[in-house]
């Protein structure tokens, strides 16, 4: 895969005067869903705005599928952006919003109308197409923003907190849309605070804090690289005390918490592989009846907590 097929961020820094936006960021983002995760003020929006060309880097270069911001007429045919701000030009209906800006792309009336309608259909907003956007509910405004971003069928879709304000049904539909676009070969770059959803839908995550990219890759890969960080594994079985006793004979076990119902335990271990091996032996030796074994922190939330040190759920 060449740079023509990727979003390439090459050693990019952005300073607002003396304030750091992002620093020495290097990324190469292939097609698929990529999530940008970090606490408030981490530099997520700055990074997205740099990729979009709304901001110019202080240092470094950015190209999106081989195009730079110096060629806006080529770049923005390929790029769609959904801002985090709940803001729209005044007085426009949903249809007018999408149609009007498609016309700015240079499309004919017929094409613009057809594509605008199609975008509204994609986000299930055709019934409200002729109502003013300012009269929409928060979820509808979020969806019309999304429709505007995808209306010209971009190859790169950049979404700044796109799931905010959506009810569970709409959220599921939007996520399915992202997955569909990604399956078609688009780059979908999302920043979100809804960590478990990002965890579910992302092909890879980029963790950012204080303007630095602290980790990048798929969630499992990021987790595996954190060798020294103990991993939590939940075991549901009939004799958890026996498992706990055996575990403490090993060096890798750090902590064990018994479940209140006496039917399981949570173990923190420095080596998941060694623990699974030990568990196999206990099952065979003690005839242990195991109901379930599952890693408890193999998700973005735990990775996030470990790398960034905040509770991602409370962002």
């Amino acid at each position, binding site marked *: 895969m060449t740079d023509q097929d990727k979003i390439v961020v090459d050693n990019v820094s952005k300073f*607002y005067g003396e304030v750091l936006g992002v620093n020495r960021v290097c990324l190469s983002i292939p097609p698929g869903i990529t999530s940008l995760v970090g606490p408030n003020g981490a530099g997520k929006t700055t990074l997205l*705005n740099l990729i*979009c*060309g*709304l*901001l*110019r880097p202080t240092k470094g270069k950015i190209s999106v599928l081989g195009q730079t911001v110096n060629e*806006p*007429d*080529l*770049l*923005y*045919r*390929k*790029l*769609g*952006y959904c*801002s985090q*701000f709940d*803001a*729209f*030009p*005044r*007085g*426009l209906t949903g249809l007018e919003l999408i149609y*009007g*800006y498609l*016309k*700015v*792309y*240079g*499309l004919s009336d017929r*094409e613009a109308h057809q*594509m605008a309608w199609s975008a509204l259909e994609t986000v299930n907003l055709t019934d409200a197409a002729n109502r003013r956007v300012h009269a929409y509910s928060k979820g509808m405004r979020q969806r019309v923003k999304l429709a*505007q971003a995808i209306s*010209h*069928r*971009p*190859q790169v879709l950049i979404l700044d907190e796109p799931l905010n304000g959506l009810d569970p049904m709409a959220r599921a539909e939007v996520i399915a849309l992202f997955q569909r*676009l990604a399956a*078609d*070969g*688009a780059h979908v770059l999302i920043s979100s605070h809804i960590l478990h959803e990002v965890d579910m839908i992302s092909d890879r995550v980029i963790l950012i804090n204080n303007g630095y990219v602290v980790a990048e890759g798929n969630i499992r890969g990021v987790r595996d690289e954190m060798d020294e960080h103990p991993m939590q594994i939940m075991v549901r079985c009939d004799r958890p005390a026996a498992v706990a006793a055996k575990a403490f004979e090993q060096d890798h076990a750090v902590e064990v918490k018994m479940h209140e119902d006496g039917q399981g335990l949570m173990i923190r271990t420095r080596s998941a592989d060694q623990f699974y091996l030990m568990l196999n032996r206990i099952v065979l030796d003690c005839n242990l009846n195991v109901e379930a074994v599952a890693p408890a922190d193999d998700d973005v939330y735990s990775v996030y907590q470990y790398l960034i040190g905040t509770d991602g759920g409370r962002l």
Partner: protein
Amino acid sequence: MITSFLDRLTEGGSPWSVWLRQTLAIMGLETKKSFLGRRLIAVYFLALAPVAVLVIRIMVPLRPEELGTPGEAGMVFAVVFQTFVLRFSVFFGCMSIFTNLFRREVMEKTLHFYLLSPVKREVLVVGKYFSGLIASLVFFVGSTIACFLLVYVPYGNKFMEDFFLEGVGTQQLLTYASVTTMACVGYGAVFLLIGLYFRNPIFPAGLLLGWETINFLLPSFLQKISVVHYLQSLCPVPLPLGPLAIITEPTSAWVSVPGFLGLTILVILASALQVSRLEVTYGAD
């Protein structure tokens, strides 16, 4: 793989046709904003206030010595036009319309809709400038024409017919309308630039107003560095400027009009340069 609909936009066509379509599309989006909304109350007031005064002049008939001759009515219009329409209505109206073209979109966090369209930023500046220009022309050329007609209404239909069909009425009307058009063109470009370069346009606008107001007191060469000097030179009825004024030879229309338009183009180019470097952070304004 997704294929872009838009790749074929410039295929086989000249970029100028695309730019023209884009300019018209921008104007289409802006037109609604230019005429509707609470923020335009002040602009409507500036455009309609002199009209209202002249309507009252018709409705509350003045004594014959107050009404004066049609020649004196021409002077009344010159006063209305040169002291209020040019110096206040068009100046403040253009300030409100043109400084807002970009700044308001930054305030309302909607400028990215334009900046992330495949449109050259120069085209965006031209599209927005023309939409502002159309709005200001409708407001202020409309106001000028209405005022000119209303000044002569009290003299009756017969006089109106003679004055406009056989006399100098139509020529004067067109001249005044052209002066207003040029005022909108010039002040519009200046305020577009001020709105882009200054976060708070009041102080540069205040300085400009001060400069334009004391212009007649300045030496000749300084008088020529102002919009109002050229506009007043083109007015058909000159207005006495008072004992303190420094009389300057009016600039010929053949020099002032092309010079004025050339300067306007330069100012618009400076605006385009600023927009091409514009970064959108939507910070606290």
